[in-house]
């Protein structure tokens, strides 16, 4: 067989059923092999769409997503998706065609130094230099993508290697198991937890990535210890929203209860989180009196931004279990005053949905949608105000159900991510919640929905603005609305209809129920276009450079 056949066969042997890509000259032998092989290839309409579909696929099932592109412009179009995967630690394998080995370095047609380009947006990358290392390189790429802290891995394959005659063999690429956490630091962590009177469990995306067992173990640990919890944007869904002592999302657009209480904590138990600036506000004012116990799989995160008194490096599920056992044997301080405080803060700062007027209030829309979706639905959002409203007002039963571009904040993420998720979770209802700005960034993927008849649902929240930027212009740039007014948006429902997608527009609060029901109950793909007030803002907001307790709640 050829190198190209080996690529397809190895992917199949590794259990890959679906890949997302776009053909071109330097990858044509692989496309020829796809034509005769037995892997489902999904043609996206821009390589960025293919990369983000692979991200959505991966995040919804917590396993590797695969994308494929040609050299030059195909590879450069992948880059944003790889950067997204890098900053959110998503296991993705990207395969790119490259000009033939003898032409590398000659400025050949569609030659770009993809290996060089990949360095800052991948966990690792390979240029395959000889046909004999092709299979082992692909296996290694999968192992790296899913082991330790997951991330994107790129394999660049020159065309001569794709046509070389080769022999393939059985392939395997299991994740390397995480090492177990040493006993001494766990003992130290237990000692700190026993002394704490105002501890907070600070939960990030790493828990979900450690697997459903880690999520279950974390929930058990929270239940056993009664420690109040907060989540990051990527941690949403890890702790049940119904938990009494769960305070919700922390950070720039977090809940008041979470932001106020984290600031007063005397101990942070960090699980798979990384003190991102959107979480901490001004770093040296974040939880100023707290000691830190930090669970992570990446040793670079321990004490990177905030000194950890105890670093717990390794297998989270097992570590939490053993820490829980130590605390069961010898529990700590009575936390009831702190727990009562949590209940009181939550009660005092509940979200309100009773906005006066005829127009549609986006938080209410999302709350109603959340209540009407089946519990195992996947929501892939875009970036902006609507993304923060999803995080605040929708409820998720698992982290794999909330796909949000956290680290990179990639506008255009939602539609291709939803497409990817629909493939890894074919039975789930998948909804893309998008904004009028973000939707247009990868709108070509409506073509993918049409081509494969996907039932992806789209909720477009239209404020005729790049709303999040407009909000900052209003608050921090004296209302100079530079290039954020989109009053010339296309007719979105007509646009969708050109792709055979049904839809409707709603503008008034009394149309909400029917609109949501049309969206949720549609058989195929559906676009619900919702007009909202342009001036609506996301509250609360920790302004840039402020401490988390200094939240703004109005524009005045």
């Amino acid at each position: 067989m050829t190198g190209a056949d080996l690529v397809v066969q190895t992917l199949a042997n590794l259990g890959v059923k679906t890949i997302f890509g776009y053909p071109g000259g330097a990858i044509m032998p692989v496309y020829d092999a796809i034509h005769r092989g037995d892997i489902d290839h999904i043609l996206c309409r821009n390589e960025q769409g293919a990369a983000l579909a692979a991200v959505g696929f991966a995040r919804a099932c917590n396993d590797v997503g695969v994308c494929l592109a040609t050299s030059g412009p195909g590879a450069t179009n992948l880059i944003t998706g790889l950067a997204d995967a890098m900053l959110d630690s998503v296991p993705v394998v990207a395969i790119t065609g490259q000009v033939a080995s003898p032409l590398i370095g000659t400025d050949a047609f569609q030659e770009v130094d993809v290996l060089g380009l990949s360095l800052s947006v991948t966990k690792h990358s390979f240029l395959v230099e000889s046909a004999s290392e092709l299979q082992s390189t692909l296996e290694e790429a999968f192992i790296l993508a899913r082991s330790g802290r997951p991330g994107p891995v790129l394999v660049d394959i020159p065309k001569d290697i794709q046509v070389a005659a080769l022999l393939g063999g059985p392939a395997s690429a299991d994740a390397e198991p995480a090492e177990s956490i040493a006993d001494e630091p766990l003992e130290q962590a237990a000692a700190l937890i026993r002394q704490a009177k105002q501890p907070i469990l600070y939960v990030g995306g790493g828990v979900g990535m450690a697997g459903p067992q880690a999520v279950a173990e974390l929930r058990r640990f929270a239940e056993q210890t009664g420690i109040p919890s907060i989540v990051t944007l990527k941690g949403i869904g890890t702790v049940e929203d119904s938990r009494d002592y769960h305070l919700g999302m922390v950070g720039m657009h977090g809940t008041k209860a979470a932001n106020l209480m984290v600031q007063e904590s005397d101990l942070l138990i960090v699980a798979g989180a990384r003190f991102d600036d959107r979480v901490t506000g001004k770093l040296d004012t974040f939880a100023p009196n707290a000691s830190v116990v930090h669970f992570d799989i990446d040793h670079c995160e321990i004490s990177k931004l905030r000194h950890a008194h105890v670093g717990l490096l390794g297998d989270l599920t097992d570590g939490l279990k053993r820490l829980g056992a130590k605390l069961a044997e010898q529990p700590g301080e009575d936390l009831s005053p702190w727990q009562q405080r949590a209940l009181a803060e939550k009660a005092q700062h509940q979200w309100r949905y009773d906005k006066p007027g005829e127009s549609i209030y986006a938080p209410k829309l999302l709350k109603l949608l959340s209540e009407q979706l089946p519990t195992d639905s996947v929501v892939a959002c875009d970036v902006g105000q609507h993304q923060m409203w999803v995080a605040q007002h929708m409820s998720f039963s698992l982290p794999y159900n909330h796909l949000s571009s956290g680290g990179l904040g990639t506008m255009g993420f939602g539609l291709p991510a939803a497409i990817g998720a629909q493939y890894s979770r074919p039975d789930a209802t998948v909804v893309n919640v998008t904004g009028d700005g973000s939707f247009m960034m990868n709108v070509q993927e409506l073509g993918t929905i049409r081509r494969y008849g996907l039932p992806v649902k789209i909720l477009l929240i239209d404020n005729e603005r790049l709303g999040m930027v407009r909000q900052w212009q209003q608050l921090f740039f004296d209302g100079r609305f530079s290039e954020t007014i989109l009053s010339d948006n296309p007719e979105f429902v007509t646009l969708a209809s050109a792709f055979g997608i049904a839809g409707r527009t709603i503008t008034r609060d009394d149309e909400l129920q029917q609109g949501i029901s049309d969206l949720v109950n549609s058989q195929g793909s559906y676009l619900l276009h919702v007009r909202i007030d342009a001036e609506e803002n996301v509250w609360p907001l920790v302004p840039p450079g402020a401490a988390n307790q200094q939240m703004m709640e109005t524009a005045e």
Partner: protein
Amino acid sequence: MTTSAQSTASQAGQQHTISIEAQDRPATVERLLRVIRHRGYRLCRMAVESSQEDERIALSVTVASDKSVVLLQNQLSKLVDVSSVEITSAETNPLRISA
């Protein structure tokens, strides 16, 4: 493992010499240099020795930064091709991290 960014923080611009051993693959040196620059360290001196037979490469780099050199050691040791990163300068205790 207990690491402290503060206790090992170096003074502004303090120099440290680091020995790195890695597999010699396409882009290995670029990867190392990119991490050094991007994480906020200035490259002062560098020596590279690569041996074709065993595909290994050894580097000695002297960097300056007001950030802790341990943070750089951590980031370098995370690279897939890197097998060891040792801080060899007199200012800190030799500390070896195996990747």
